[in-house]
């Protein structure tokens, strides 16, 4: 099944295809994959991500991903 994977700031380089515009890749994953499992597959160090959104809602590493989900991950960041 496919999900939309958005990796931002210093995490963009972990995208399977980092050159694709908009920080976004469509990736193929197996049913029942958790966010943590996907992070491991992409070789993103587990302590790196700080803010995780699934369809715009805060999520944790153990969340199971579903078909068509929009996953957005940020390293520790800020603003104002």
């Amino acid at each position, binding site marked *: 099944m496919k999900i939309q994977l*958005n990796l*931002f*700031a*210093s995490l*963009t380089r972990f995208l399977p295809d980092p050159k694709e*515009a*908009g*920080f*976004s890749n469509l990736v193929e994953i197996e049913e029942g994959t958790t966010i943590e499992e996907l992070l491991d597959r992409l070789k993103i160090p587990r302590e790196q991500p*700080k*803010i995780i*959104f699934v*369809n*715009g*809602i*805060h999520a944790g590493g153990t969340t199971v991903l579903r078909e068509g989900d929009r996953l*957005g991950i*940020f*390293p*520790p*960041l*800020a*603003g*104002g």
Partner: protein
Amino acid sequence: MEKILRIDMGAEGGPKINEVPVGDYAGLGGRAMTSAIVAKEVPPTCHPLGADNKLVIAPGLLSGTAAAMSGRLSIGCKSPLTGGIKEANSGGQPSQVLARLGYAAIVLEGKPKDETLYKIVINKDGVKIQPDNSLKGLPNYDLIDKMKAQYGDKIACISIGPAGEMKLAAASIACTDMELRPTRHAGRGGVGAVMGSKGVKVIVLDDTGKTMRSPKDPEKFKEAQKAWVKGLQTHPVTSQGLPAYGTNVLTNILNEAGGYPTYNFKQGRFAGAAKISGETQAELETARGGLATHGCHRGCIIRCSGTYNDKDGHFLTKQPEYETVWAHGGNCGIDDLDAIAQLDFLDDNYGLDTIEMGATIGVAMEAGLLKFGDAQGAIKLVKEVGQGTPLGRILGSGAAVTGKVFGVERVPVVKGQAMPAYDPRAVQGIGVTYATTPMGADHTAGYAVATNIMNVGGSVDPLKPQGQVELSRNLQIATAAIDATGMCLFIAFAVMDQPETFQALIDMINAFYGLKLTADDVTALGKSILKNERDFNTKAGFTAQHDRLPDFFKKEKLAPHDVTFQVKDEELDQVFNW
């Protein structure tokens, strides 16, 4: 900072300078100082452009010391935009220079009898005020070039552009940065119009011959400073995110969270967000020879600012902030960073609040004056503001006035001030702040976004009403206190997550002034500032009905979450229940 400089602009025979000891206002700084003076000395029902209003300019308690991050300046008055009390805050150099010159505040009082424009010069030899009508109409950049030519490049300037001279309610007050550019602004609430109504075009500060302010207990101060710096260099927000990407790092975050106000607050995601994100902006700036990491004042170690060059590598403007990129970008359906940078430059040059201007253009688009996404049209409109055409004057009076003139219902304001870059339906904590802060719709007054979206200082679900009142209350109190210190508000990220860093701030204040303040005293200070402000607003005619968001936020669902603002009116009335 033992003196207050009072200048009566309407005195017989011309402006009269009066330097007085700080007196009853001793121990106050920044917003504590400005709100105390305004609450005590300005009649709450006065006309904001009249002789009874006062413009108070105050450095913070730690400004002009060796404490890192202490360069913020507070400017207060009765606001011509909201009709209530206002504190606008700016970075840049003037705060520390003014503090080292020994002033706890400058108070501009009265009103000139004619249209003469004045220039004030303050250095180690004293204060001079001179008429200079050759400065009339000068945009900020041209004005600063002239001041540089006359007074050298060791100066720091506080100025208004043509917008302030025209007394437009969206007019800002500019503060020069380390490169002596007028890029930092006390933006919100029309403080520039009040400076214009007092006939003052520019205040030139030069602290040559003055030294760093020295602490009562240098050893303890040094120790506290060390812990302070360590804390800021440890927290990922202050040590990595902000220096690398600046505040515009928030574009992708708010967009992902579905709380990015798009097309005048119609939806919470913008398809063009990635194109105008902080990451894209930093890459572009670096490629064009600008800076993605840059401090706005000496002593800043976060360095969230930057410089933006045009495609030929020439300086165009400072790195536009998140609020500016949103207001002129996604809010207006514009996804062109160069156009946004051009708008930022125009706002800085004319002396306009970028948030108010962007929101106003969004309302103008809603009204059909131009299409959403029309970047060149937006640039034309801002130029009209600078020129003072009738349409320009309408737009320069802000989003509420523009909405009224063109019969628009969807006007995102509270107490007449435009909402910043977070939709209150998807970030309900900031919605509580927008509604209840005495400042009008203001994001810095109680930045619930940190906890709602970024999980700083804990975590409160942004899409539900639970916990938002408490969150906003605590942040409004803490922020008011921080605003008194001269500290840049971005220290709050480190302070909220690291108790030892909060303690270091208290230790620095105690070591500097020889005090024994506790965390409870800091809370008490924040509460007293808010009380002054609420009391002023009540006497000015504000009621609980003014602590509300516009109706449509309660009724109209915001995509992608299909959510409305759910914090009840009775709960909003509990924010100040101590």
